[in-house]
């Protein structure tokens, strides 16, 4: 078991190392002539007004929130699906009730208008 994870650990190292080399290599190959105008924030030639912080809609937070709840509930269902062969019909229904609660949450968010963008 741990051997497989060792492979993944080594894969993480390789997957970070090789792109890192690709990004670092141009330091020697490519020209480096920074100047004030080149380093400016790019806005299609416009002068930047204010800083990068803009007021975001709270909507972004609401979507991330609904996602968080759904994500964690879905993750709980994975062991249920894996152990499916050993489960009696009752246990299957437990899972279905779980999904129904999830659906109820979605319906609430929908009715509340939290899923509208505008």
């Amino acid at each position, binding site marked *: 078991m741990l051997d497989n994870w060792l492979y993944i650990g080594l894969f993480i190292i390789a997957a970070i190392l090789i792109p890192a080399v690709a990004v670092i290599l141009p330091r020697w190959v490519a020209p480096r002539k920074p100047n004030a105008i080149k380093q400016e924030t790019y806005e299609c030639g416009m002068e930047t007004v204010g800083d990068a*912080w803009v007021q975001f809609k709270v909507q972004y937070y609401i979507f991330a929130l609904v996602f968080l*709840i759904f994500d964690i509930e879905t*993750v709980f269902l994975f*062991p249920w699906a894996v152990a499916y062969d050993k489960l009696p019909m009752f246990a299957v229904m437990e899972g279905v009730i779980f999904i129904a609660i999830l659906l109820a949450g979605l319906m*609430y968010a929908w009715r509340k208008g939290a899923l509208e963008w505008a």
Partner: protein
Amino acid sequence: MSGLEIIFLVVAAVTLSAAFMVVTTPNLVHGALWLVLTLFGVAATFVLLNAAFLAVVQVVVYIGAIAILMIFAIMLTRKVMQDSGPQTNANWIVAALLGLVLFVGIAQLLRKSSAVGMMMPAMDGAADPVVQLGEVLVSPNAYVLPFEVASVLLLAAMIGAIVVAWKK
């Protein structure tokens, strides 16, 4: 020292230093990014404990959802590129002392306990923990009630959070 021990020490060192950065860095977005690294380190610890399922769930839920939510909240509540003033309140020294005392106390307690030298039992014969988990989570004489209550709790949390954060 075996390879496993070295890996554990590296993981623990990275995780703890990242956690230290989380609680000390003045820039909150940096704090959140260090938090991501800490959570990843904890996931690696779960792998070392042969709890593969919890390790991936840790990454999916904590990094993929909770950390993202935190970064969103940080950006919704402050001017992100500009906060580098002092981020600690007046009694941070007391807090640091308390944390230190707690750690030393736990370490002392551990020194006396019999659990210190316990070794991992072999995993070979044991059933797949994921299957076990799937069975007990929906089994009426095990944890079906906590399982369903957790789902209701999450539903309540979602409704509550939408009511609090949402204004029309």
